[in-house]
């Protein structure tokens, strides 16, 4: 009898592991599919990189490295950096689900996969896209504005944590607004209150990193935000995307 119980526990444990493995392979497959399609289409990639480079060039011409007193530089530079990152991301990230609806592929995806797995895969792709934007923008920002990255590790951690939250929330909002008539307006209206705490905290952490300190407290807030955003997106994915 006890052996039977042990067997059933082992089987249940095994099936849970299989389910987790299957969920992970779903997420990776969706992200890889989006990456392949994007590399062939290049719509989002070109748009976000073009925006990032243009914004960076305009900011560097308008302010330049010596346009500000030394003490004022970190807050202004941090705000400008996140404005560029946010708007560059906002050019590409919201397309995650809208493109599926526009091309009619959403039905095939909905038929095959639970919404949470699709959302996780698309969030992973969007995070990769954000990192590609950041890989161009942050070093370019450092060179063109002669920003001193006092704590490179702090800055990298801030960009990673801020970018993750931005990707998850943008992807979720993309799912929520994908079938709306005025989806771009809806996205911006909902994104503003949801992303403001993330952006303000990311700017505050970046200021500290530019001044040479490690932004421990702000990073903890960012990580807590990321955790809460991930849980909310997971729980609400089906409500947001499935009929």
């Amino acid at each position, binding site marked *: 009898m006890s052996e039977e119980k042990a067997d059933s526990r082992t089987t249940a444990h095994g099936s849970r592991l299989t389910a987790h493995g299957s969920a992970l*392979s*779903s997420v990776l497959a969706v992200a890889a599919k989006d990456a*392949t399609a994007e590399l062939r289409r290049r719509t989002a990639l070109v748009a976000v990189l073009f925006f990032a480079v243009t914004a960076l060039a305009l900011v560097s011409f308008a302010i330049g490295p010596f346009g500000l007193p030394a003490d004022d530089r970190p807050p202004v530079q941090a705000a400008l950096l996140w404005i560029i990152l946010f708007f560059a991301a906002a050019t590409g990230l919201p397309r995650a689900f809208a493109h599926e609806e526009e091309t*009619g592929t959403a039905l095939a995806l909905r038929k*095959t996969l639970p919404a949470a797995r699709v959302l996780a*895969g698309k969030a992973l792709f969007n995070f990769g896209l954000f990192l590609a934007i950041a890989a161009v923008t942050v070093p370019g920002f450092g060179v063109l504005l002669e920003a001193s990255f006092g704590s490179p590790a702090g800055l990298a951690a801030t960009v990673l944590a801020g970018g993750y939250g931005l990707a998850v929330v943008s992807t979720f909002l993309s799912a929520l607004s994908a079938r709306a008539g005025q989806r771009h307006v809806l996205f911006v209206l909902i994104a503003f209150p949801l992303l403001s705490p993330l952006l303000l905290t990311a700017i505050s952490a970046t200021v500290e990193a530019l001044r040479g300190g490690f932004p421990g407290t702000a990073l903890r807030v960012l990580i807590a935000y990321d955790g809460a955003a991930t849980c909310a997106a997971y729980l609400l994915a089906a409500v947001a995307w499935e009929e």
Partner: protein
Amino acid sequence: MPSATTLTAENLSKSFSGPPLFRGLSMSVRGGLVAVAGRNGSGKTTLLRILAGLARPTSGRVVLERAGRALPDPERRLAVGWSSPDLELYGELSGEENLRFFRRAAGRPEPLEESRRRLREVGLAEEAIGRRVEELSTGMRQRLRLAFATLFDPDVLLLDEPANGLDVEGRAVLATIVERARRRGAVVIASNDERDLAGADERVELDVSRKP
């Protein structure tokens, strides 16, 4: 021979704006071929979407049971195959890449040769296999939809206007798919073309259930 899987719709109603498309519709699909007929706008496509789990009924419910046990969500999605003219696959990918993506995404990857066999079964020739979906003709896309519908060898196959855009050879492919799926489980076909509904074991007329 009846299938071990049963798809049951209980007291379904669906309304958008205006009068309901259908009301109090119940049906049980255990095996064989079920034809869904009705004039344009009678709700055939909507009914199949509800049965496929892609749309919610306004009231009523759909249950898929295998050996008396209701299937949980991920399993349910794969146990029911579905094709419709509204279904599109990824234009940037080839037909083969599309099939392999959906198999991987569902956690059931299969060898390349198996995906190619599926494409050959719907009559997509070698040269079409490597081409992007956006480059395929209407008929070829319809064949690809059929390959998608049967991708997980479903117990219940739901086909909405399955012969759309198919040539004579394509219709023969469709007949083979329907016959095979019918032997394995159940097939539900919704169509305006009586040729597609010939030989059905049961028939659901949607106009009859519609009340203004």
